[in-house]
């Protein structure tokens, strides 16, 4: 019996190739898209789950609320924190501190600028980072030993065995001799701790100084704790206030809260500040998941509508089968089985597509996902295909099996109800497509807006060269480079600053005369900084080499700061803190976006030296505070200019690695998440439109086929081509209109929500909706008209004779 069904099914599929092609390709694209997103989401949600007893590992976060309600919330915490807590809390089994230090690593003549993780020896006990060479118990025991990942080992040592080899690691300004003690596996892509080098925490005092080990207010890294099996956070939280009071001192005012963030929670919890590794917004998993489901849904709807559209073809078979003895259940089973068969065929193609598309997808998503046929994903997708087949097949199966054989075999078949249902489905399909079009258009408009918005400076043609060395040496290199480059025709300006555009600038706060805590952002810059950036002064003057007091006393602030302090005439003013050394505002720069457009421009102070910071209470630094040289180049061949810079660097900073980046690219990287989402949306929307078009095309084919005779008769009665096209188009146009009316408010609402993430939002213009509507209407009409016109141009006599 099943062989009989299978034969009929396969022969039907072969006979109606276009229909089969549309069904199977549509579904397989849908399935492949879903699988890719599934891989993506699985990766996102599996972060840090590979540690043993991951549920017991927590990262400490500190929330400080001062007595005047200023809040500091960070996942970078003081090095004293974990040890102090472990002393008093038996619930804590072990602790690990993880901090990073960017500095130079030398092997023989070769120099690399690298990011080094400084960790406690408990690192390998608490976390699951297996070694390929060496022993976890001894790898970090000696302060002079260093662990490399396989990738790093290969980069530094090539094919040589690195074990026991010497390597020089510079900590702050001093080079130290290290020995490679172990090689670790590369960190998995779904890890919130990603290292290239590990050195023992013993070295931390050489980097951050002794005070970092006693102060609660110097924060340089992350603290992790592993609880005992019975350890309970609620109990810990009850004991914490007393313990903290003891260490912070009785006179500590305000609140100092220590939060325990489960390690598996780090990657997707946007309520906590980012730590050492970037985190991700769980909303993106949901958005992409929904979009993938939409694509699959559109393909499934094709399947349903096409099955129903072809039901007349199959009706006779149903009638005959009933007459020769089939009962309804058997027919339901047959047609349902056919649907599942089609979706399984689509699955095979979908799996192939997934494998083919994975490299492109990885590029888009910025991930290193891999797919193997023998994984749970395949099983999941099998299930997915099965469910799609079952769901998409149920209505056609019920509908077809319900035909009354007498009516069918007489050719007196009514398909009225199915038509209504079909219209609803097509309308729904259009709704999804229009929704996706609108979202894609709004997203790309916002992204274009972000990239083109006037930032208050000129981001084009600026190259940043991080010196990677301490201030004295950095400034010496800068002077040499400036001497060599400033008169070169390819160079417009050259300058430097501690922080470059696109990285977090330093944040400081102080208590003013009324004891209120007041934060401000700060950067330490060179005299030519604003000129190089092409930022605009709105009052006062720029820094000057001729006026020597500028070095220690002159500051330039931005408009946001002037506004915050309510100064009518800011020039000559000073920050109202009692501890600040002598200083005065010499100029006001127009607000420029030194941070991403997710945030507003915050009050900013620019100074030539760090003397002002002596009056600050807290200073928070996220990025490397080593000088960066900033070069504005003249338009021309960028490649030759970069080589010029490299040549000069090699001469002026021998033995130091040359790195560079373009400011505009760095700025674009700030919107990488959004850019990625936008690109994936582009793909999804194209797929969705493509699949619905194919469905519409074949539906139109069926509709026209069924009404060929009618078209013939109408033509003989004198109907013009337009009349006939109009007759067919009206129905589809109404559907599109209806879908448009439903999709628009929903898409508007969703996009409004998405835009709230940005401080600077593009206005959603009504043109986008109109465009989406007109576009889908045009696509629908072109698809339908093609078929109708073909039929209408045919000789009506042929149509009538063939009946």
């Amino acid at each position, binding site marked *: *019996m099943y062989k*009989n069904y299978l*034969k*009929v099914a396969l*022969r*039907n599929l072969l*006979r109606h190739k276009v229909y089969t092609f549309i069904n199977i390709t549509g579904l397989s694209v849908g399935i492949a898209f879903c699988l890719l997103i599934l891989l993506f989401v699985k990766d996102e949600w599996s972060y840090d789950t590979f540690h043993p007893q991951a549920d017991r590992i927590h990262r400490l976060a500190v929330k400080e609320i001062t007595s005047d309600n200023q809040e500091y919330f960070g996942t970078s915490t003081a090095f004293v924190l974990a040890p102090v807590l472990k002393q008093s809390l038996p619930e804590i089994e072990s602790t690990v501190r993880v901090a990073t230090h960017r500095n130079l690593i030398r092997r023989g003549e070769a120099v690399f600028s690298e990011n080094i993780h400084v960790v406690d020896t408990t690192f390998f006990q608490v976390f699951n980072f297996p070694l390929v060479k060496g022993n976890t118990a001894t790898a970090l025991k000696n302060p002079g030993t260093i662990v490399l990942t396989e990738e790093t080992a290969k980069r530094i040592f090539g094919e040589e065995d690195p074990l026991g080899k010497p390597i020089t690691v510079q900590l702050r300004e001093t080079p130290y001799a290290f020995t490679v003690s172990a090689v670790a596996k590369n960190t998995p892509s779904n890890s919130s701790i990603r290292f290239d080098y590990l050195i023992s925490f013993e070295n931390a005092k050489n980097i951050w100084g002794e005070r970092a080990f006693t102060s609660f207010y110097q924060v340089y890294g992350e603290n992790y704790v592993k609880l005992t099996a019975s350890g309970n956070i609620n109990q810990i939280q009850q004991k914490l206030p007393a313990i903290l009071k003891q260490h912070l001192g009785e006179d500590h005012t305000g609140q100092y809260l220590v939060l325990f963030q489960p390690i598996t929670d780090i990657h997707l919890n946007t309520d906590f500040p980012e730590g050492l590794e970037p985190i991700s917004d769980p909303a993106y998993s949901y958005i992409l998941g929904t979009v993938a489901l939409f694509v699959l849904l559109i393909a499934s709807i094709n399947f349903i509508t096409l099955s129903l559209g072809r039901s007349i073809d199959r009706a*006779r*078979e149903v*009638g*005959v*089968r*009933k*007459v*020769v*003895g*089939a*009962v309804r259940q*058997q027919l339901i089973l047959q047609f349902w089985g056919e649907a599942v068969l089609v979706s399984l065929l689509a699955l095979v193609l979908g799996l192939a597509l997934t494998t083919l598309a994975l490299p492109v997808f990885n590029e888009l998503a910025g991930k290193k996902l891999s797919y193997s046929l023998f994984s749970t994903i395949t099983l999941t997708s099998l299930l997915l295909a099965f469910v799609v087949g079952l769901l998409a097949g149920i209505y056609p199966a019920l509908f077809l099996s319900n035909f009354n*054989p*007498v009516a069918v*075999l*007489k050719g007196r078949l009514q398909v009225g109800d199915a038509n209504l249902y079909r219209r609803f489905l097509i309308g729904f399909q259009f709704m999804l497509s229009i929704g996706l079009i609108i979202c894609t258009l709004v997203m790309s408009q916002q992204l274009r807006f972000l990239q083109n918005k006037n930032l208050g400076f000129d981001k084009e043609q600026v190259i940043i060269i991080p010196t990677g060395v301490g201030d004295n040496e950095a400034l010496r290199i800068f002077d040499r480079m400036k001497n060599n480059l400033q008169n070169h025709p390819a160079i417009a300006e050259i300058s430097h600053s501690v922080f470059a555009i696109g990285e977090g600038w330093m944040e400081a706060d102080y208590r003013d005369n009324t004891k209120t805590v007041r934060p401000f952002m700060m950067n330490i810059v060179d005299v030519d900084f604003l000129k190089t950036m092409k930022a605009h002064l709105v009052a006062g003057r720029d820094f000057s080499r001729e006026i020597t007091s500028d070095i220690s006393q002159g500051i330039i602030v931005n408009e946001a700061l002037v506004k915050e302090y309510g100064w009518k005439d800011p020039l000559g003013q000073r920050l109202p803190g009692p501890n600040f050394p002598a200083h005065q505002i010499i100029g006001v720069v127009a607000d420029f976006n030194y941070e991403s457009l997710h945030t507003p421009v915050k009050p900013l102070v620019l100074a030539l030296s760090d003397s002002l910071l002596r009056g600050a209470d807290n200073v928070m630094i996220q990025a490397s505070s080593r000088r960066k040289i900033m070069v504005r180049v003249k338009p021309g061949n960028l490649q030759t200019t970069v080589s010029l810079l490299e040549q000069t660097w090699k001469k002026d900073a021998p033995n130091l690695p040359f790195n560079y980046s373009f400011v505009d690219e760095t700025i674009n990287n700030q919107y990488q998440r959004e850019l990625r989402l936008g690109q994936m949306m582009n793909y999804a929307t194209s797929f969705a439109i493509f699949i619905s078009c194919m469905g519409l095309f074949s539906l139109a084919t069926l509709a026209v086929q069924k009404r060929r005779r009618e078209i013939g008769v109408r033509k003989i009665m004198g109907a013009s081509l337009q009349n006939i096209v109009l007759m067919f188009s009206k129905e589809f146009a109404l559907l599109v209109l209806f879908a448009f009316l439903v999709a628009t408010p929903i898409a508007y609402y969703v996009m409004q929500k998405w835009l709230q993430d940005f401080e600077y939002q593009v206005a959603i213009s009504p043109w986008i909706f109109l465009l989406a509507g007109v576009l889908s209407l045009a696509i629908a009409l072109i698809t339908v008209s093609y078929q109708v016109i073909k039929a209408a141009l045919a000789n009506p006599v042929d149509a009538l004779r063939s009946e």
Partner: protein
Amino acid sequence: MIKLKNIFKWYSSGFVKTFVLRDVSLDIAQGEFVSIMGPSGSGKSSLLNIIGMLDDPSEGEYYFLDQPVHKMKEKHRSELHKNHIGFVFQSYHLIDELTVYENLETPLLYKNIKSAERKAIVADTLDKFNIVGKKDLFPNQLSGGQQQLVGIARAVITTPKLILADEPTGNLNSAQGIEIMELFKKLNEEGVTIVQVTHSEKNAEYGSRIVSLLDGRVEQAYA
């Protein structure tokens, strides 16, 4: 074998009832060869469908092999239909996607007959109808007469007691028609009861009795 008592069939559209069969009573004994005749629209097909249990009467009693069909549950009725009745149509109604062999096999599948036995029965039938050479062809590769031959073969393959044929020669030329009617005659002689609808006096003569319908009523025969 068949006993129809005061059968009515009507269709209602809105408030109007259109009567198709009016008070039809009819007895057909086992082994008879009955021809139903009458002008177009007189209700012949409707009557045949009711006898074949493809359609229900609106009113009246129907006994098949002395069992009350009008009181039966759907399942029981389709068992009866499946085991005892074969259908032949004017436009053959073969399944286009199946070969001759597979078309013949289909009714056996629905009777849950085992594979080996099925093969034997189909081979027998192909042989009996002289269409062994056509077994792997699809319906559209056959002439109308050949298709109808397959249609009849499919109707008899389950060895039904009753064959119902609705204008079986309507789409055939006269030579093909004669061949089909001879076949029916032979089947009837083997003991199969046959009820056919026909417009042709000549075809009707193959049967043992003629029932004339006019406007949904049986015309009294003056025989």
